[in-house]
């Protein structure tokens, strides 16, 4: 047993190293020919080598490795053309405001080319600077990549940023690629008609990986090499045990909060009917009620009536009775009375 511990540590270290290193996690994407990776790579590489402007939209639900694939492609390109690429990354969450976005673009351009940057410059100045820079970069055979994450959030308001970016794509001197990432499938429908006409409508769809794919990925990640003398099932066992314990903790909490039921009167009546040993004062129950509110297991029925005292506002239960029953079943310390009560209500 003592000998197993260092082995386990070792295995853990290996696995952690793998899981935290994105290059390994996503390396199987590279191999197969007809994937989004190779399509995107072709698209982007050809726009670098043929000096054309492009705009691409990567669509798909979250967790479908849109960003990972893009990162890999850009990484590869950087290796191929070390000098000829500069990157601007924007996120719709942070830069959906046009002024703020142009400023951020100017800042990143300055940083990349070791120019000094002024926070004070007006947004017109920044836009002019961006256009000048695009031109200079185009003359120097540099391709500028604009990566816009949460693309749908840029499509709010007048879409001035998108318009000026996409309009700049239509001049000869600038050489740039706009890559939008969005999890909204209708992201291109959100664009204003002028912007949409300038957008080149290249879309790459990322679909959630199928069960086989995930299994393969997991095998790729979690299978230990033959030469490291570790039992393979060690890891899986460990993982499953972890989940089980985690789940039980969660459910225990849920049950606890249920234990103090919401409405005082109801509680009183139950108390009277069953004469249980544990009696709680009103204040304790009120605390419990607040507790439930905090946990968002119950919520107020309507948003109006803010000035009404807390006790008299109508509330709603947010979890289903089925969940309640399950959690009560699981909790061993729960008084029998409650279960009986619940059962009776269900069959009534």
């Amino acid at each position, binding site marked *: 047993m003592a000998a197993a511990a260092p082995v386990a540590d070792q295995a853990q270290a290996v696995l952690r190293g793998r899981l935290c290193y994105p290059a390994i996690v996503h390396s199987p994407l590279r191999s197969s*020919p007809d994937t989004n990776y190779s*399509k995107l790579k*072709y*698209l982007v590489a050809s726009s670098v*080598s*043929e000096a*054309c402007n492009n705009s691409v939209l990567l669509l798909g*639900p*979250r967790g479908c490795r849109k960003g990972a694939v893009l990162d890999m492609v850009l990484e590869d390109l950087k290796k191929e*053309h070390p*000098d*000829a690429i500069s990157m601007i990354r924007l996120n719709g969450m942070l830069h959906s405001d046009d*002024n703020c976005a142009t400023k951020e673009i100017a800042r990143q*351009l*300055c940083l990349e*080319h070791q*120019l*000094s*940057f*002024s926070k*004070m*410059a*007006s*947004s017109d*100045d920044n*836009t*002019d600077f961006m256009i000048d*820079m695009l*031109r*200079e970069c185009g003359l*120097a*055979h*540099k391709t500028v990549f604009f990566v816009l994450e949460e693309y749908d959030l840029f499509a709010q308001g*007048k879409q001035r940023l998108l318009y*000026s970016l996409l*309009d700049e*794509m*239509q*001049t*000869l*001197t600038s050489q740039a690629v706009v890559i939008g990432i969005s*999890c909204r*499938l*209708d992201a291109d429908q959100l664009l204003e*008609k*002028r912007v949409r*006409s300038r957008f*080149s*409508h*290249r*879309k790459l*769809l990322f*679909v*959630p990986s199928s069960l086989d794919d995930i299994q393969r990925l997991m095998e790729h990640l979690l299978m230990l090499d033959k030469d490291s003398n570790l039992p393979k099932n060690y890891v899986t066992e460990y993982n499953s045990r972890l989940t089980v314990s985690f789940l039980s903790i969660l459910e225990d909490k849920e049950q606890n909060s249920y234990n103090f039921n919401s409405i005082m009167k109801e509680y009183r009546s139950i108390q009277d009917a069953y004469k249980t040993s544990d009696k709680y004062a009103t204040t304790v129950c009120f605390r419990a009620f607040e507790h439930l509110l905090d946990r*968002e297991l119950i*919520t107020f029925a309507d948003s109006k009536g803010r000035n009404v005292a807390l006790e008299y506002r109508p509330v*709603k239960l947010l*979890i*289903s009775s*089925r969940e309640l029953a399950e959690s009560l079943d699981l909790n061993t310390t729960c008084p029998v009375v409650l279960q009986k009560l619940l059962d009776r209500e269900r069959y009534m």
Partner: protein
Amino acid sequence: MDLSATPTPTRSKSKPKSSPSKTIAASAAPQMDFSTPSKPTPRRKSKSMASPPPMSPATPSTVRRSRRLLETPTKDLSETPAKDLSATPVKPKPTPTLKRKRAAPSPKTPSQAEPKRQRRLPKQRSYYRKVVYDGGEFAAGDDVYVKRREGAESDAEDPEQEDCRVCFRTSGGVMVECDGCLGGFHLRCVRPPLRRVPEGDWACPYCEAERAGRAIDRPKPPAGKRIRRTAKEKLLSSDLWAARIESLRREPDGAFWAKVRWYIIPEETAAGRQPHNLRRELYRTNDIGDIEMETILRHCFVMSPKEFRDATNEGDDVFYCEYEYDVHWHNFKRLADIDDEPETKEDPSDEPYNADNDYVSDTDEDSEYDEEDEPATRCVARKNPSQGLAANSRTGRIYGLQKIGIRKIPEHVRCHQKTALEKAKATLLLATLPKSLPCRDKEMEEISTFVKDAICNDQCLGRCLYIHGVPGTGKTMSVLAVMRRLRSEFDSGALRPYCFIEINGLKLASPENIYKVIYEQLSGHRVGWKKALHYLTEHFSDGTKIGKKANQPIVLLIDELDLLLTRNQSVLYNILDWPTKPNSNLVIIGIANTMDLPEKLFPRISSRMGIQRLCFGPYNYRQLQEIITSRLKGIDAFEDQAIEFASRKVAAMSGDARRALEICRRAAEFADYRVKQLQVGQTPSSANRGNGVVCMGDIEDAIQEVFQAPHIQVMKNCPKFGKIILAAMVHELYRSGLGEVLFDKLSATVFSWCHTNRELLPGYDTLLKICCKLGESKIVLCEEGTKHKLQKLQLNYPSDDVTFALKESPDLPWLSKYL
């Protein structure tokens, strides 16, 4: 050795050595395919050794050629001692005809010569546009050879004609130039002898042998005879310099000086000679020097790639220059003026601006150089490394941007032979401006008459043209094309000077900023918008001067006019009110999408704007087809019916030309991708050549990508419970007949289905999470997840789509019975 069969486009040039000999020039001068501007192939020339014909008069068109005839080697500069010249003013045989420098763009206004006055000129520097110096006529903008002081080894001789590398004689018929070593060979001296000048690349037997790895002795010159080197060879072996004259001046003491911009040969750059450099390639530097005129040897011709390709007859001293080299940062940049050909769209507002500037100013300061090129600012920029001058602020702009450049010119830019598909992709780019703009002749005619009336006939009063049409119908393009045409008319002197301002409403930070922009364009000053409005109104109504250009007729183009709408519509009103003012010389062209924009405005605005309108209807399929085929002329990459299919499809949907071009480009990309994948899979030789054509399938794919929402595919690939939820939603919505469903009910259905079909029961919160995920990609519309079971859900796509997508799902065969 027949190289003419190579697939590369052949270029053959006939290069009479010292004189244009018509017969040979005609014999081998078919120009081939020049549609690949990015990569010029090395050129071929034949050198004729014909005897010089009688001197031709120096008409402007033949200046280049005849200039070389004017200065014969006997009168060569280098033979005159350096000091001699300035001391004895009698020396220059033809008295220097000094022409006052006037940057008059039109030849109609003759730059009059002010002859023989220079003796009595006041004691100050005087600048000249053209100087006839020692037999040669030099003007600003000319390229010249410049002597290097130290290497005066053999500057004295300047042979006009090159010796044959085999027989070492100059005379004796046509010579051909090797593309490898640039040596000249008589046709008959080559083994085997050539009958005529070969087309395409030609390498001499020695170069061929070296390329093949064999050692071969080049013929040695006969004893006692020195190899004479032409100026070109000296330059390329860095014994001479080449420079472009930026300005010419005469110092108070009478000496002529020139400010020159140096050229540099690839060997002298930090990157060294790169494999893709052409033999005759030079880089223009940003290094500017002052030299005395007597160090100038004679003319050479440094050309942009386009000129270089078209050049046929300029002799031996032609060089190729595509890049600028920054001597301080050691990096390269394409020369901007290559792309500044008149047909580019880039910054059209600026160009007339500068032109006007030149026209009016006959001052002698050298102000027409860009501030970037000014050596003084450059030095300043270098000395204090832009402390406190941020590049993105207005004042700091000039100090930062020169830094941008590339260390080494990437090889793929120049050595890449484009396939037909790649050519097609390039020409279908929205950025490339086609040579002709079909299908909009009538509209352009109307715009043209409108603008011309304003400029020529002073019919400006209260005139405004409103252009409307859906996006991608060529509104802006037509106006800009008209303005370009007018510009060239103006350049040739057929038109009065005018001022053209282009503003895009969507690029303004706020509608009021338009005053600022207009005022800045007119006067060159930057003020706040309120002040600008004040000045402009004053100018237009009372005629106060705000700048020298403001008095010319002004053509104001406002793109995306509807963006200028404010709540009280004051911006539009103010702008549209100007043309009605008595002192204004202003016409406005407004462009917007909606047809009834004037009707939506207050009546006082629509009465000023809505009189003259021009509608750009959506293109029909014939027009789209014509647009695409005119772009693809000469490139055999598309099936005809594929183009027709694409244009019909787009015409049915929107009539947007941008869309049609993009679809075709995307289809070309698909085809190219297919071809390249094939080549990766097999050996390149076995790749199917016939596949390299865009066919219907590619167009179909492209159209699908553009027009079809991807939701069905996403639904098909949903996780299992996602599918169940979607199916349950369709079921519930159908049963209840309502538009939305509560999560509580939905989950109940899901649980019961799972129960009856022996699926693993999902957790309640798992279901909730899946719902939120579906909501995120907008397959369903849902409220925020905190509402748990009270969350309302709604399908975002028709339920038929869901049914279609989920009908056959392999992992859930039982699902179809509920649909």
